[in-house]
């Protein structure tokens, strides 16, 4: 039995507009490419991938820790192990995030219209720092006590103490396990989408696109 396929509506309202925008800006072959420029076969491009991999395990171990509650890992050896996975995952995440940031700086990765990609990436880095901080003050151990007592002065001095109190475990924990992970993942997703939409930037000094032999040496963000 066959069913007549309805005709594709023209326009499609807001839904159609969003779908067409996504399909036009980031088709699947761009999101999941099978070919890349030869110069991408450089070890520096692994730093971003490793950062994302570390974020995956930080999130996964964080979900387990959140599920069993903030006391669990202090009393259970398996809980302590998951906390350790979370702890070292964060360390790996930041090591490679910083390496990715530095190599993209020296590669001037913002060239040819990739300024927003850099901006979103740096904002994701900054948000990750805040996420890590709320994690450190949510540990419910001596480190958490001392970090919170110390950090309150800097936070209060800026006036941010009006909205965030690091001595309030409930507030810090809630922000750490819900709000900031969502923001970090969203920013990383946008960052990756921009990378895929724009493609990997050409090497500094490479011949101008389509102009054999003419070298470009600008490091401006706009094309």
């Amino acid at each position: 039995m066959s069913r007549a396929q309805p005709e594709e509506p023209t326009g499609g309202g807001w839904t159609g507009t969003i779908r067409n925008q996504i399909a036009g800006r980031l088709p699947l072959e761009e999101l999941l490419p099978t070919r890349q420029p030869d110069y991408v076969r450089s070890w520096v491009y692994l730093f971003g991938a490793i950062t994302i991999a570390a974020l995956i395990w930080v999130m996964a171990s964080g979900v387990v820790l959140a599920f069993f509650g903030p006391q669990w890992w202090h009393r259970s050896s398996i809980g302590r192990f998951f906390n350790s996975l979370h702890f070292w995952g964060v360390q790996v995440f930041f090591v490679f995030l910083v390496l990715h940031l530095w190599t993209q700086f020296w590669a001037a990765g913002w060239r040819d219209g990739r300024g927003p990609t850099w901006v979103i990436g740096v904002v994701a880095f900054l948000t990750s720092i805040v996420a890590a901080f709320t994690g450190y003050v949510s540990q419910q151990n001596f480190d958490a006590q001392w970090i919170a007592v110390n950090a309150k002065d800097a936070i209060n001095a800026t006036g941010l103490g009006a909205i965030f109190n690091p001595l309030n475990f409930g507030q810090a924990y809630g922000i750490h396990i819900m709000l900031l992970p969502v923001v970090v993942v969203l920013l990383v997703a946008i960052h990756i989408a921009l990378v895929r939409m724009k493609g990997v930037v050409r090497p500094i000094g490479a011949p101008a696109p389509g102009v054999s032999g003419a070298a470009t040496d600008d490091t401006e963000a706009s094309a």
Partner: protein
Amino acid sequence: MSTMDKATYYRDIRMVPFDLVKELVLASAGVLIVVVVLAAVLSSPDVPPVTIARWATADPVDFVTTAASELAGSSTSADYGPPYNNNEGSVQTLWFLKPQSWAGVHTAVDPSNQFVVEPLQQAAVGNAALTAALSTFQSASSDQQTSWLDAYSKALADAKVDNGQVTVAVGDYGPVPVLMNNLLGLARSGGLDGLLLASDRFFATDYTRSLLFMGDGGYLEGLAKEQKLTGNQWGMMHETGRYPGQAWLWLYTLGYQIPPFNQGHGFLGINSGNADLAITVMMTLLTLILVLLPFIPGLRDIPRWIPIHRLIWRRYYSDLKDGQRAATAKPHDSV
């Protein structure tokens, strides 16, 4: 950039097969192996938290000295300022910037009553001596209270601990010794931990009172110094037991180690008294520069001037130089 734009962008670039998903899966597997090994071998820091009970037991004189300062309203927390109260002891300003004052009080804390008097009132149920001492203290004039507390605080410098009680030389301290030793007993029993955390809604997750109280004393800071966690020990960079801390804050914590941020007299209105605000302002400016770096002429040109990119794309430049890239490029290789 549309697909056509990208085709133009990569027109003369040699394209090669690339498995993005495979790379991510392998990277994830590699990272998992590394973190599992690190977690299994090194574990993670978990030094038990300090409690008021532990503090009062381990260093009763420090506890009582701190409690007396809370009752007198002369502790760091009592004199702090926003967001805890309207005083100015810890309010930082820089030039025209007064964000701490502008933000105002949002987490009201009254150390004298909340840390000392109210817990003692609860402990006084069925304790005639404590009830009388509280009544005497509260009915005394402010000058009299100050006189008793000043004398007692000075006497604490030579205090002794005898059978769980802090004793000082004979003097005119009014009911203060009774109040303090009852608070000490309450603290040692663990009761004060609960009373400082208690809320009128049963559930509680806010440790502001307990941590401010402990932060006013010397015991918590002493333990932190032993673990090299204080600000001038680069404390943000590591945790207890030599575990790594927030090493990514190295530039932020560097500020606390250098002039003018670590000097009393300072420079251009910046000194140790407003270091938190000054360093945060400096870091905010540096962060803005980092965020907007692609749009700042000069700074965005640094990668071109210092050719570290020659290492990043070493093979590409080598191929370009040898002319191999042009020779090996094929039309169907382009996007």
